[in-house]
């Protein structure tokens, strides 16, 4: 899965979808995930990077990142690669 190509994401985590006109604010970790996705990192790589950086259980991180992906998908911010 990858971020929609025309999405505008600011350093502060403000996300603007120019196709729908919707805007969102992500928290610090959400912004970090989105920025890693912008660098074309895979979800597995993102999970590994976050696990290295933060003091968190692997299962908990797995669940939180997956939930965040669902949130992004429900708001039409990502697309699944076929």
């Amino acid at each position, binding site marked *: 899965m990858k971020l929609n190509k025309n999405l505008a994401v600011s350093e502060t985590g403000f996300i*603007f979808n*120019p*196709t*729908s*006109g919707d805007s969102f604010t992500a928290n610090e970790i959400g912004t970090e995930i989105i920025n890693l996705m912008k660098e074309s990192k895979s979800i597995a790589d993102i999970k590994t990077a976050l696990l290295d950086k933060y003091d968190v259980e692997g299962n908990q991180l797995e669940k939180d990142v997956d939930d965040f992906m669902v949130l992004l998908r429900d708001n039409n911010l990502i697309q699944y690669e076929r």
Partner: protein
Amino acid sequence: MNAKKRQLTVAVTGLNAIDSPGPGVAVIRGIRDCADWDVRIIGLSYESLEPGIYMEGVCDKVYQIPYPAAGTEAIFNRIEYIHEKESIDVLIPNFDAELYNFIKLSPKLEEIGIHTFLPTTAQFEARDKINLFEFGKKHGFYVPKQVVIYSVSELPKVAEELGYPLVVKGKFYDAIIAQTLEQAQKAFHKLSAKWGTPIIVQEFINGTEINVAALGDGKGGTISAVPMRKMYITDKGKAWAGITLEDDRFLEMARKFCKATKWRGGYELEIMLSIDGKPYIMEVNPRFPAWIYLTVGAGQNQPAALVKMAMGHDVKPYDKYAIGKLFIRYSWDLITDIEDFQKISAFGEY
């Protein structure tokens, strides 16, 4: 030394910058923003309390004109009187209800030196909401299924065909969503009492509303098209804030509309993007929308381009606009004196 700019006098209607605003003030702002001319703006008002009459920096002079119901002759006589005093170069009508008269009058106005840039009567009628379904079918647009009815007794059969919820629409304005036959019947009576018959019964399309302000050159070309999504809607369904979007589907629809109709002038496409991603045309408004100044802010000055085309100049189509540009409307209590109000209400000039 700077070359002397061309002097231009433009007359504009729709000065009612109220909670359900006319486009006049926004059109004037666009024309004034264009650096190609020194413009004198003549406001044409119907009522004495239209805010655009009194707003600073909007009109240089305002004249009251007769309501459309007075007929073309009364309107022409009044415009001719104003023209003798002001030498109008271009006239831009901005209300649906007055357009029919001005389209009819445009050859006579041209004869006395007033240019317009309006669709033909046939173009104007083809996109009328009563004919919209046929129009969509003919030109390959998604349009909601609809049936035009004249009697409440036709409702049960139509409702069975379209299913619930359905939308009951007045001939000119207003739409009511009905979930049951009783609600649909009530809506029929309410709307027919207000606007007369026929009544339009339409399939309900659930989705996101998108509006496109566009300008056709009258030869099938699109000079400008800017899509906008309403971000805040008033209880009258009017946009109080909106944002420009990036989506080629909507630009393509505007181009296709201009090509199919050879539309001459400004118009607004009201689109419903259904949940399964189909862009339905819900209505085509035959003039600039009240939010037209957003097109200027986004880099496509549609009102100025219309003036240039009305004056016979070729205008190159715009090819880009700023995405994510917002407009936010606001209220403002303007203070004026009874003398000013008296001028327009007693003498019809301000």
